[in-house]
C-alpha cells in the first residue's frame, strides 16, 4: 500500500477515536446523571460541605471549613508536612478577608 494511504488511514482512525471520545463522554454523563442526583440529595440531607478528596489531614479533608491556622497546627512557623497540602489552596473566604484587611490599612504599622 502507498505510504500516504497508510498514513491517511492512521489519521482517520485516530481522528475517529478523537470524535468517539466526545460521543462516549455524552454517553457516560447520561449514565451517571441519576447517581449524581442521588449524591446531591445526600449532600443536602446530611448538610455536607466538602467532597472526600484528601483524607490525610483535617484541613485537606474539609478545606472550606478549615481555619487559617490548621495547616500550621504544630507551631506558628511550621512547614506544611502533608503532600496533599500542596494541592489544596486556602479557602476562598479566608483569602478574601485577609486581602480586604490589608487594603483598609492607611498608615503603616
Amino acid at each position, binding site marked *: 500500500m502507498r505510504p500516504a*494511504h497508510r498514513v491517511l488511514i492512521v489519521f482517520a482512525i*485516530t481522528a475517529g477515536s478523537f470524535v468517539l471520545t466526545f460521543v462516549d463522554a455524552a454517553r457516560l454523563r447520561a449514565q451517571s446523571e441519576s447517581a449524581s442526583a442521588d449524591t446531591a440529595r445526600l449532600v443536602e440531607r446530611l448538610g455536607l460541605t466538602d*467532597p472526600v478528596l484528601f483524607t490525610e489531614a483535617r484541613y485537606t479533608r474539609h478545606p472550606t471549613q478549615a481555619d487559617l491556622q490548621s495547616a500550621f497546627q504544630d507551631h506558628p512557623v511550621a512547614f506544611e508536612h502533608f503532600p496533599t497540602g500542596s494541592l489544596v489552596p486556602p479557602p476562598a473566604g479566608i483569602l478574601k478577608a485577609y486581602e480586604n484587611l490589608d487594603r483598609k490599612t492607611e498608615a503603616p504599622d
Partner: protein
Amino acid sequence: MKIWIEKQKHLIDFTLASLARRKAKNLGLLFIYTLLVFVLASVALYTHALRTEAQKVLAGSPEIVLQRLVAGRHDLIPPGYLEQIGRIRGVQKMEGRLWGYYYDSVVKANYTFMAPRDLNIARGEIVVGPALERSRGLAAGNGISFRSYSGELHTFIVAEALPQASELVSADLVLMHEEDFRAFFKYPEGHWTDIAMSVANPQEVRNVALKLMTALPDSRPILRDEVLRTYASIFDWREGIMLALLSAAILAFGIFAWEKAAGLSAEEKREIGILKAIGWETGDVIKMKFWEGLLISLLAFLLGYVAAYLHVFHMDAIVFEPVLKGWAMLYPRFTLPPHIDGLQVATLFFFTVFPYTAAVLVPIWRAATTDPDTVMRG
C-alpha cells in the same frame, strides 16, 4: 482538485520517506510529544471534570455554616447561640451540626464522624461510608469497636453502608445517633460543632452573614458561594504544584523540539539543495516540511488526547493516584463523569500543532530560497 490532492499525496510520500531516514530520532520525538500531550490533557480533563462534579453535588450544601473562633481557632458553639441567631431576620432554618474527626489506629486512617438530624439511626448503630466498608471489611449486621479519646471502647452495629455511587462525598463518613456522638467525644450538652443555616431570600445571604458577624463577633460565617469557589480553584493549573511540575516538562520539551526543528543538519540542507537542483520549487519544499511538522504534531495531539481520555475516564486517572492520595490510608474510589471543556481542548490543540509546525518551517524558508549549489556545498 484531484490534481491538488494527488500532489499532496506525493508530498506526503516523500515526507514519510524523509522521516524514515531518521527513524529513531523522529519516533523518539513523536513518543515524547505524545507523552507530554497525554500528561497535559490528563491534568486538564481530570481537574475540569472534578471541579464540575464537585460544584454540581455541592449545590445543595448549607447556605451558611457558622463557626465560632477562639484565638483564631475553631471552637464549639456554646448554648444560647441558636437562640441569638433565631432573632436575626432572614434566617429561615437553622440546625446545630455535630461532626468531628476520628483517627483509627487499626488502618491508620481518619474518619469523619457525624450525627445527622435528618436520618433515623438507632442508638448503638452506625451507617458507614463505602471506603470504610471496604477497608474494615464491614457489612450490615457486623459489629465494630472504636476507642474514644477518653480511652473508652464503644461498640456499634453497622446498620447499612452508604451507596458506592456517592463515594465522592461519603467515603469516610460514620453516621451515628446524636447521643452516641456526644457520649463518644464527651461533647458537652447543648454544644455544637457549628450551625448550618438556610436563608429565606438567596439574594440576602451576604446581608444575613454580616448581621451574624455583628451579633456574634467571635463567629465566622462560611457561605455556600465560598465553598463552591474553593472547589472552582482547586487544582487550578495556575496554582501550586501543577504549574511547578508541568512547566519544567514543557520547557524541556520546548528546548528539544526547537533544537530538532530549528537547526537544520548538514544532511537536511544537502537534501533541500538536491531537491532544488532537480527542479523542486521553493513552495514545494516548504509544503513538504509543513507536512512533516503537521503529521508529527497532529498525530501526537490525537494519540495523546485519546490516551488521556481513556486514562482519566476509563482507568480512574491511575497515574495521578499516588499524587492525590499523598499519605492518606483511606482513599475514595470514584469514577468521574466526563465533563469536557471544549476551550481547553482547542487550546491544547492550538499549542500542540501550530508552534511545532511553525518551528519546522522557519529554518526551511532560508534554505529553500538560497541557491542550491551554495546549500549543497554547506
